[in-house]
């Protein structure tokens, strides 16, 4: 086979084998594979064409479905990232508020002591919040 013939064959096959280094050996192997597939089948061309159109139709449906699920996946992922961010923001804000609460409570207890009055403004929920946002009273 001369150079120009090789170019024709190469051009003919390059759309299929564009990821492969196109050598004569690759083309030979590929042709042999196709011819063998053709010789080994007992199905006729019309049946094959019909079956192919069914697969092509199914492929179109699957492509649409893939696009839909991909979009939904993208939406849920971005929503997830946004919710995680919001949660962290509010959680950290609460941590700061609890630190402020701890300081205010401490001041309150000291003032009650100085004024020799019994403290009456201690809420159970204060402790719960401190436990929740400042575990181990960090």
């Amino acid at each position, binding site marked *: 086979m001369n150079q120009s013939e090789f170019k024709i064959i190469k051009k003919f096959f390059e759309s299929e084998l564009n990821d492969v280094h196109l050598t004569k050996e690759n083309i030979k192997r590929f*042709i042999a594979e196709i011819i*063998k*597939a053709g010789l080994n089948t007992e199905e006729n061309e019309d049946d094959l064409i019909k079956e192919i159109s069914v697969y092509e139709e199914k492929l179109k449906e699957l492509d649409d479905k893939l696009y839909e*699920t991909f979009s939904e*996946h993208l939406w849920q992922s971005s929503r997830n990232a946004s919710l995680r961010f919001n*949660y962290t923001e*509010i959680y950290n804000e609460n941590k700061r508020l609890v630190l402020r*609460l701890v300081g205010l409570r401490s001041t*309150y207890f000291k003032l009650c002591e100085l004024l020799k009055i019994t403290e009456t*403004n201690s809420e159970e929920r204060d402790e719960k919040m401190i436990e929740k946002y400042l575990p181990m009273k960090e």
Partner: protein
Amino acid sequence: MLWELWIMNERSDYETIKKIFVLMPNELKQEIEEVSKKKRTEVLEYCKQALTKGMLVKKRETLKEKNELISEKIAEFEKQIKSLKSENDMLLNKIREVEEDNTWLINRTEELERINEVLVKKLKLRGV
């Protein structure tokens, strides 16, 4: 795709078939030549038919594989979507909870600030 190129444009191109025939492994050439009784045009016609059928078989295989691959990818996405949805619901509940705490904490710190201010005033009045 090679299949479309072959089926749509090159089907009757004997020049291409001749070139492809040259590239075929010897045992395959012999097989084709024997079946087509060694007549050149019959050899090429037989070769052309085998190629066309082979191309169709390959195209069907490729499409089948592609469909299977896409179906798997869709199933994978659906699984991830399900898990993301349930995680997002859980996050929404947690956000509602911390938001409620946030409102309570703002009110409570404001309340303690006011009480402490009153107590400081009392202390000042007592001259402590």
